[in-house]
């Protein structure tokens, strides 16, 4: 079957696919537990009967019975050595009975393993596994291929790449979506459609998992982004297992009616999956006989996708920001991190940029002394599972781009393709092979054309070449090429003119990488910001920039609003909401407050930076150290504790205030000793033996210090005897014990028993996630506290009683 054979049917009517084969084979004697594919191969008469029945009811395409006939699945039946022969044999069985004008699709399914970066199966190994199966199917004479019931877009890409690298047969690709309208690994329908059609699928769609009603939303979500016909092959309702047998509740009439509705939603290729029979398909055929298929075509919209999100730059909407920060040029810390493969640094830059407004992330790891290809692949794999933003892969190396595009589970933008001979010859076909969009740079082997008119000519030349690789204008963006105005006063004007031409005349997305324009000039941010606004007014729809740059962000939002690209100025308003209401009151009040009062407020506010100066000022002004502590600082931290208990403050605010208090205390403590001021007491604190959780204990220690206690923190995993030894040595007033687990809280009574045995006067207080007041009483503790604020209060109360 040639690639256009499906198209020929679609010019006239909906393509009708077959229904389920497995349940039909069970009805003919196959039993649970056997290898279904091998059973079918050994019972060709039964298989032929099932498939002939589907041809007899008018199916245009019948799938071979080879869904699980890949090496990995067959390994479970110790049949991996037979994969090629088995696929050929099963394909031949169906091909031999296909009437003229009907087609057999070689069926390919999941291996059951997760492919990298989401799982351990190396991508190229997955491709090899599929190639083996495909060779068998092709040898068996199939007319086209179908990849179906796929749970993960990356495994689906591996299968599709294997198809493309093995044969020219058209490939139908169909994924399975869960209740949340995503695949099991989180890909939404529109992202799956963008990724797979770009990679060369002739048809994309969905099958299995749900009945036709639930599948409607999936088709509806794919339709706006589809450039190829859509496929829908639902189950006969949701499966149920009754007494070990899978049953489906939807009868032929209902199935036919509901599945026909998927044609209204946009499906042009339909059939049935689990639980359907030739009767279901007959009912469907009758319902769709008069329907005209929806055949999508290019719609002029550039679409990029990660495995979890589609981004479509829009010349009439807010500008799309490509975050530029993942680039080691001029960034020593990032260079060092990349050399040491500390990819968490890249992960953080990615998160910071997307949080600041980046829609796409440019990824460039080129620098001296690293294996750029290996590093790029590692970074791309890591980002694939940690950011939703599609990637813009930025390298001048064809090998690096080829390796990165191969493993990237999305549709990337390649940065960039110029008219330099090597790039056109090497890079363009690589980008095309993986369905990537291209960023076109009007640059030739002779350098950068000076005028916009010359650049336009170069862009047209590149586009002519790109068309030969299957590209349309919707698959590309043009870079206006920014040069520095300090060396050429006309540079910015020519760039803007190139942008205007690309956006308004040539009809593609136009972008700029801003910062070159201001090179060598002071206060570059103003030039960059103004230039960005000018570009937006010329129709630029994408920009490569640092999204965390406040000036650029302000200019971008203002220009979008002024150019009518921000509906009702909502984004502008949202971004600047509250900007005029910055809280200046505390500072104003601070200026007039006495220093001890200002110190008190600093503790309440958690102003670590200001408190030391304020405490010194209070002492210099003559406030006695003990009075400063007892009348201002401790009341402040007590008030913070009250705010925490009323939930006005949450834990980080409590901790900020506690840190602030700690700094204040560090200054006052030596003076209190000189003053011979009353002491709050000494606490020995520890997380008990066998327990390594210490964050809660650390918080309690901090709060106790805040209340003037001398705290001896023994750390975590501390033996009972060691705790009591130290309490004895220090003459502790209190012992504080923390445990987070039921297996370790049993250490607490050991400490209490040891302290009692030695007749220590220290009171013992306990706490931790699994500890309760009742447990504290049961083991004879003197007190229990639910949290750090409670612990401090308890300590103060207990020692007051003791005194």
């Amino acid at each position, binding site marked *: 079957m040639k690639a256009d054979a499906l198209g020929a049917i679609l010019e006239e009517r909906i393509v009708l696919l077959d229904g389920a084969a497995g349940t039909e084979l069970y009805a003919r004697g196959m039993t649970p537990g056997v290898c279904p594919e091998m059973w079918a191969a050994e019972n060709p008469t039964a298989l032929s009967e099932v498939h002939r029945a589907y041809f007899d009811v008018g199916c245009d395409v019948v799938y071979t019975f080879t869904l699980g006939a890949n090496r990995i699945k067959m390994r479970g039946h110790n049949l991996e050595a037979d994969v090629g022969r088995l696929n050929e044999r099963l394909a031949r069985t169906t091909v031999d009975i296909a009437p003229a004008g009907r087609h057999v699709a070689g069926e390919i399914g999941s291996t059951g393993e997760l492919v990298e970066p989401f799982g351990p199966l190396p991508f190229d190994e997955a491709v090899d596994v599929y190639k083996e199966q495909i060779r068998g199917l092709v040898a068996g004479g199939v007319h086209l291929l179908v990849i179906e019931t796929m749970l993960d877009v990356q495994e689906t890409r591996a299968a599709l790449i294997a198809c493309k690298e093995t044969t020219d047969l058209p490939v139908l690709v169909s994924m399975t979506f*869960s209740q949340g309208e995503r695949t099991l690994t989180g890909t939404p329908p529109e992202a799956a459609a963008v990724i797979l059609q770009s990679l060369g699928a002739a048809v994309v769609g969905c099958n299995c998992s749900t009945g036709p009603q639930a599948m409607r939303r999936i088709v509806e979500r794919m339709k706006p982004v589809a450039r190829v016909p859509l496929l829908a092959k639902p189950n006969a309702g949701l499966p149920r297992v009754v007494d070990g047998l899978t049953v489906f509740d939807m009868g032929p009439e209902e199935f036919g009616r509901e599945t026909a509705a998927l044609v209204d939603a946009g499906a042009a290729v339909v059939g049935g999956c689990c639980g359907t029979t030739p009767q279901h398909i007959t009912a469907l055929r009758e319902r769709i006989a008069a329907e005209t298929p929806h055949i999508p075509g290019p719609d002029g919209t550039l679409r990029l996708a990660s495995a979890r999100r589609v981004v479509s730059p829009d010349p009439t909407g807010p500008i799309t920001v490509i975050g530029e920060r993942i680039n080691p040029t001029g960034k020593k810390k990032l260079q060092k991190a990349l050399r040491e493969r500390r990819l968490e640094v890249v992960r953080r830059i990615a998160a910071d940029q997307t949080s600041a407004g980046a829609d796409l992330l440019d990824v460039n790891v080129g620098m001296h002394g690293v294996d750029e290809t290996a590093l790029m692949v590692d970074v791309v794999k890591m980002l694939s599972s940690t950011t939703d933003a599609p990637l813009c892969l930025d390298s001048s190396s064809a090998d690096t781009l080829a390796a990165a595009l191969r493993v990237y589970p999305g549709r990337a933008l390649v940065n960039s393709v110029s008219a330099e001979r090597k790039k056109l010859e090497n890079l363009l076909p690589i980008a095309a092979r993986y369905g990537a969009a291209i960023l076109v740079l009007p640059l030739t082997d002779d350098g950068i054309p000076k005028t916009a008119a010359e650049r336009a000519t170069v862009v047209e030349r590149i586009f002519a070449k790109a068309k030969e690789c299957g590209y349309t204008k919707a698959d590309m963006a043009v870079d206006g090429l920014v040069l520095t105005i300090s060396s050429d006063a006309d540079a910015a004007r020519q760039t803007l003119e190139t942008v205007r031409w690309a956006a308004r005349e040539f009809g593609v997305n136009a972008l700029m990488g801003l910062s070159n324009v201001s090179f060598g000039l002071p206060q570059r941010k103003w030039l960059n910001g103004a230039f960005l606004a000018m570009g937006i007014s010329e129709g630029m729809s994408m920009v490569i920039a640092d999204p965390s740059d406040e000036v650029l962000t302000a200019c971008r939002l203002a220009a979008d609003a002024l150019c009518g690209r921000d509906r009702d100025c909502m984004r502008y308003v949202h971004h600047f909401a509250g900007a005029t209401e910055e809280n200046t009151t505390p500072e104003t009040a601070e200026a007039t407050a006495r220093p001890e009062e200002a110190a008190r407020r600093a503790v309440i506010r958690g102003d670590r930076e200001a408190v030391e100066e304020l405490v010194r000022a209070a002492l210099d002004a003559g406030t006695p150290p003990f009075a400063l502590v007892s009348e201002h600082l401790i009341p402040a931290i007590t008030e913070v504790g009250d705010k925490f208990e009323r939930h006005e403050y949450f834990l980080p605010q409590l901790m900020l205030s506690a840190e602030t208090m*700690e700094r204040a205390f560090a200054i006052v403590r030596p003076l209190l000793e000189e003053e011979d001021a009353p002491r709050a007491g000494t606490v020995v604190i520890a997380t008990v033996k066998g327990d390594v959780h210490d964050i809660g204990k650390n918080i309690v220690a901090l709060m106790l210090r805040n209340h003037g206690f001398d705290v001896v923190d023994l750390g975590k995993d501390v033996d009972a005897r060691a705790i009591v030894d130290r309490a004895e040595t220090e003459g502790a007033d209190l012992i504080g014990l923390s445990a987070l687990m039921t297996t370790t809280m049993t250490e607490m009574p050991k400490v209490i028993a040891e302290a009692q045995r030695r007749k220590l006067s220290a009171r013992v207080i306990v706490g931790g996630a699994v500890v309760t007041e009742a447990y504290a009483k049961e083991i004879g503790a003197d007190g229990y506290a639910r949290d750090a604020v409670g612990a401090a209060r308890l300590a103060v109360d207990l020692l007051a009683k003791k005194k």
Partner: protein
Amino acid sequence: MRRRDFSAIPLTAPKESILRRLKFRQGTTRLAKDETADLDALIRRAVALCEPVGRTATAPVSVEGGRVRIEGAGEIESQSLARLLERSTEAALLGATVGGAIAEAASEAAEKGRAADAVVYDAVGSEMAESAIAYLHEYLRGEMRRLGLSVTKRYSPGYGDLSLEAQRLLHRALGLSELGVTLSDTLMLLPEKSVTAIAGIEERE
């Protein structure tokens, strides 16, 4: 046992649960705009330190009295787990970790006197680990749903009468050492931000 590895679990930072863990109360707790920005940046920094990975394993299960027998793994005594799995034909064992870097960062922050940072790191680590095991659970649910089966809620050692002793069985059966997760004598999973759970697979009603 049939195992499945998840080498990189794609997670979105569960900000609401992180805030809840930090005792943030919507409408009551007050944060200035710059405090919110600082907190968001800190959460992003913390999330960047998490590397969520996981493994699932399934095996036939049988329940007798309060005793749960998982083929190829062993037996667990727990009335509450037995009740959960009473209709199950298979048990699913789940294990996930976000690695050690986040807990190390929390300790380092605490040691350097940055307690506010420490509590945020700690909360992010805990919630990311919870999200990771929830991801495995949801994956399994989606997979089983296609087969007409359903998956029960998940149950972890320490819940009800399911003793922490069950960590030994889970750790061994899942081969969590291969994911870099060890088990202490006191049955603590290390790195600290690691979670295990058991769920049942049963026919859908």
